[in-house]
């Protein structure tokens, strides 16, 4: 093997070339760097270390990014049999999430579509992992609404589909809220009827950061959506309303409000907007001293539990590796 084609991570770092990067990326994707990925925690962290320790990290980064572009250009995520659990797709997604090469957006959307409708068996642990990863990759591509418009619209559509899925509803709602695309749609009722705990977590997402009048309006829309829902669902809605200071009076004599041409029970009184708490943890973790941090965290947790229902683990769907929850936009 000549020096030019000989390959090792050390050679890649000492004398980086596009070919060497291509070989290394192939090895990462194909699974020949598994011990390193375990040690670093992810393919992208491993790549970061390769770049960080290169003789010239700017050159290394430029070569890596160019090679990743080429890799993504030749990547067809649905072509591999069993693509929904193929670890190669997972590793590429992990790289896309960290480096967001332009070509990765459309390919990820392509992969996300079938994943959104796929019902994994209980032993298919990789599938939910792949889907959550694909969702997060899209989150990286669309931190806010931006071009291309078609891809953004498609992304929003895929998120809305997930509002009907108890496992992903909170995440999807949080993301839609963040993108200012969260609408009260029928999927919300569907998911609440599947799993009541989702309802108590979902409503705060709808109300997060809203001024009182807007909060009441949105809650009223939710109320309309739940008309005729089973009593247990309505009771849960009432409870979550109370936690926000909204008294939902269902008695026949209760005053009503016209919302969207429909008379609904008035929901007003002392509305407390849901805290936009995506960064609450970060804000409370680090104070001037560890002691203060601990005290503050305890206080915030108490507050959180008194204001909102404590985060209850979602009912695990068969086949899910773990629950997938969000508390609000911002994460």
């Amino acid at each position: 093997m000549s020096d030019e084609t000989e390959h090792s991570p050390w050679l890649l770092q000492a004398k980086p070339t596009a070919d060497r990067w291509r070989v290394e990326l192939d090895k990462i994707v194909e699974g020949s760097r598994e011990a390193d990925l375990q040690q670093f925690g992810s393919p992208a962290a491993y790549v970061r270390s390769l770049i960080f320790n290169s003789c010239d990290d700017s050159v290394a980064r430029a070569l890596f990014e160019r090679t990743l572009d080429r890799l993504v250009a030749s990547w067809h995520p649905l072509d591999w049999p069993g693509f929904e659990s193929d670890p190669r797709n997972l590793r590429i997604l992990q790289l896309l999430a960290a480096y967001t090469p332009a070509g990765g957006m459309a390919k990820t959307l392509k992969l996300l579509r079938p994943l959104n409708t796929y019902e994994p068996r209980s032993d298919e642990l990789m599938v939910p992992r792949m889907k959550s990863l694909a969702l997060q990759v899209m989150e990286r591509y669309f931190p806010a609404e931006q071009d291309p418009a078609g891809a953004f619209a498609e992304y929003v559509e895929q998120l809305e589909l997930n509002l009907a899925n108890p496992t992903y509803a909170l995440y999807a709602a949080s993301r839609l809220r963040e993108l200012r695309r969260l609408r009260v749609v029928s999927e919300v009722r569907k998911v609440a009827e599947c799993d009541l705990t989702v309802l108590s977590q979902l409503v705060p997402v709808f109300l997060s950061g809203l001024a009182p009048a807007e909060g009441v309006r949105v809650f009223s829309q939710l109320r309309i959506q739940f008309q005729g829902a089973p009593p247990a669902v309505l009771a849960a809605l009432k409870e979550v309303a109370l936690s926000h200071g909204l008294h939902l009076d269902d008695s026949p004599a209760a005053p009503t409000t016209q919302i969207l041409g429909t008379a609904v029970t008035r929901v007003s009184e002392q509305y407390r907007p849901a805290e936009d708490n995506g960064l609450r943890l970060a804000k409370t973790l680090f104070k001037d001293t560890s002691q203060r941090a601990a005290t503050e965290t305890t206080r915030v947790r108490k507050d959180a539990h008194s204001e909102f229902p404590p985060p209850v683990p979602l009912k695990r769907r068969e086949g899910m590796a773990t629950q997938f929850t969000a508390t609000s936009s911002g994460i």
Partner: protein
Amino acid sequence: MGKLEIYQLRIELAKRRQPEHADAHTKLMGLVPVDDFPYRGSLSGCYPKLLKQPEFCHPSRGRRAQPDAEFLYLIAEVDKFLREINAPPELQLLKYGDITATGDKFWELVHVRGLKAKEEWVPLSTITQGVYGRDPAAGEDPKQQIYWWSDLPLAQENLVRDMRRRGLAKDWFSGRCVVLRCRLTADLVAATQVPSVLDGFASDIFLPTDSELTPPTGQAIDLTADSLKLGAGEFILGPVAASHIEFRFLEVTKAENDAFAAHSGEPAFQERLEKYYRSLL
């Protein structure tokens, strides 16, 4: 001398110092292709195969250690750290995807915006009530639940030097990390083990201790000087309850990381390692 030959020196050393593991060691060796021996980026090809072997990375094969310190320290990449904690809902989205984006995001969320993290130890229990360790319920392999701790304190000042004293080569590090410290209670002391050759099988740089001498700790190889020598004490622990652990973020520049250059794949370094192993035979 190639890496295979260096590894064979290490095997020779291991046979002399830990003969009780010789058979298991030989079995594991048989699974590794000749051109796939350690030093950064190798061995990975057969790693999944190794994980299936009961002898490899088994959490309860070592001898009991006797750490004499108030704390043990562990250093982890941010992504690795995220994989090991059972994060609360606020962080579950970050953890769940198991991606570097999560590491980046976590870093930004907690470290950059959290600001004062560098100077402070933060109780791990503020972000997880569980353990620092893999969650088999999330599809993680429970066999990978051994963690390498050291009694050498890790602080921002001299971080790179102290990492080398723990036998961590330059290429092990990507510039930022989470350092954990665990207060040693009687229970934890009882759980610590001296790393065996089987624990260190996949490690780039590893020094087998001599079983006959019943050493109280494992011993890293100090990479700071041209002549390698004995480094910090090291221990194996399984998952540890978050309530025992504090963590903080540390970061070094590329220039700092280059200060005690020891790249595990560099021929010059491998010569140093070869010389060291030979001196012990």
